[in-house]
């Protein structure tokens, strides 16, 4: 994801102004605020940014903390006392448990389909030139720039008019629809500028197309593909609006929360949300570690050929 895309050159480019700026005013003496005011500005900016980050984290802290609450009634809104009840009995509500499993199933299927379709599209866009490339770009962005209610509602009216029962299948269809765009754009951004002549070289050396794909193409696109798959999985687990409109009587985790919110808000909701958060963080960290290892290994390969 975005965290790994910072180009290595930016550090080099960033260095001069940091070292150079303080002495410039001294030499040239041109206008601008006095040093103390600039320092104040810097401190102010840092403080503001940290406060904004804290603001981003307060509700998350609440989500996690309230998974350890023992609410007085059916609604987990007010802190009562510390308890591990939610964690020791996570599957207390069978419908909530089933909904969570449905979510995981949907996310797996959607990730598989969307990653394959989206990656193929990205490969077509990066490796080839063809007519209609501009229109394709617009078509890919459009689903991401329309409100989810409109997308969901339009799909629903179509399913109803052709008499398709809504359920697992329609949820998958709806989620793949917007995920394909995400995957295509993420992978495209990550594999742009690769040297695809490696594939030709491999074929010229007698490798079969399948072997070429396994040994050359797949390793090249793997990091982008993994990032896109992760993103899709997380988006699928989280999606509510489009999914809800096309779910029929099927329930995913968010849908179950929505439907039962008037009668109960159990601690288990927070337990599951915390578990999902931890899972995503661990997988993302693993991705970073694996990628770093890979880069290191590539670096080692290069230095060994150099020496």
């Amino acid at each position, binding site marked *: 994801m975005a965290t790994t895309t910072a180009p290595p050159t930016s550090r080099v480019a*960033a260095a001069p102004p940091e070292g150079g700026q303080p002495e410039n005013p001294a030499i040239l003496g041109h206008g601008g*605020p006095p040093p103390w005011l600039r320092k104040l500005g810097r401190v102010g900016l840092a403080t503001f940014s940290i406060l904004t980050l804290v603001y981003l984290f307060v509700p998350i802290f609440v989500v996690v903390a309230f998974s350890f609450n023992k609410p007085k009634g059916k609604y987990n809104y007010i802190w009562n006392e510390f308890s591990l009840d939610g964690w020791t009995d996570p599957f207390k509500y069978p419908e909530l448990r089933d909904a969570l499993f449905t979510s995981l199933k949907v996310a797996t299927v959607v990730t598989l389909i969307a990653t394959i379709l989206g990656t193929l*599209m990205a490969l077509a866009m990066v490796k080839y030139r063809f007519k209609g490339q501009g229109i394709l770009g617009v078509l890919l962005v459009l689903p991401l720039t329309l409100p989810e209610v*409109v997308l969901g509602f339009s799909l629903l*009216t179509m399913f*109803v008019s052709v008499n398709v029962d809504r359920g697992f299948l329609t949820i998958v269809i709806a989620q793949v629809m917007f995920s394909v765009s995400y995957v295509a754009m993420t992978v495209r951004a990550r594999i742009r500028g690769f040297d695809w002549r490696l594939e030709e070289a491999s074929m010229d050396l007698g490798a079969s197309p399948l072997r070429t794909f396994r040994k050359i193409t797949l390793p090249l696109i793997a990091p982008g593909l993994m990032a896109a798959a992760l993103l899709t999985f997380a988006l699928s687990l989280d999606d509510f609006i489009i999914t809800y409109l096309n779910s029929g009587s099927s329930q995913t985790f968010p849908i179950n929360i929505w439907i039962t919110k008037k009668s109960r808000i159990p601690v288990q909701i927070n337990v599951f949300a915390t578990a999902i958060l931890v899972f995503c*963080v661990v997988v993302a960290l693993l991705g970073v570690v694996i990628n770093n290892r890979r880069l290191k290994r590539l670096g080692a390969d290069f230095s060994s050929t150099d020496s």
Partner: protein
Amino acid sequence: MAAADETASRPSRWYIPYLLLAPGLLWLIFFFIVPLVSLGGLSFKDGGLSNYSKAFSDNSDVIIRTFVFAGIATIIDVLLAYPLAYFIAMRGGKYKNVLLALVVLPFFTTYLVRTLAWKILLYDGGPVVDTFQAVGLMGPDQGLLGTNVGVIGALVYNFLPFMVLPIYVSLEKLDRRLLEAASDLYASPTRAFRKITFRLSLPGLFAGTLLTFIPAAGDFVNAELLGSDRQTMIGNIIERNFAKEFFRPELSALSFMLMALILGGVLLYARILGTEELV
């Protein structure tokens, strides 16, 4: 580039890109384009344009409120996100990626649960209401649930990272030597910021505004969980009626109107900021 050579040297295999595109493209055509067209058709059924005027006059308050809420939330998001993105891009140093990860991290918790956490925070007698009352910002019998402030506040929160990330990307790409040049040419830091940094971050600002405003305008979760009848948005109308009245043309007209207004706004906004460099 290699791509050009390839197509030139192998004219017989022109169909390969289309083959690669076909599955994804067909999916988008059948499940994105066709439904939108059919929704558009449905919105004119029976009454034609009068469906639209009826949808508008029945819901004019809601429509105006939707755009006011989304607009205010977007403006506040710009004010919060720009300094943060600037800080991470310019002052982040080696912690850049960590800080970015921190911006994204909260959004790995389920959207609905995150919004429910705001309900806990904004509850009467909760920490925020208590603090506001203690400081005198609110009277003792006032609360935040069921108010515009509560709903807009949660909208601000839920879409903030979508504003931070694109602004960050455009600031990160910025060539720092331009700033040095400006400084060498006697521009004050303020002027350099206005003429260079801000100008060059406009594409990110544009993308961020869209990514924030559009989901905010189409949202019904925040208004439903944190608001009352006085905070109803267009999304809520659709959500309340979709199950029983999907074939009522006015509902289609309403959702099509939401889309048209947003697209119109996007085009106008792109025109104001100058499109060419943005897309």
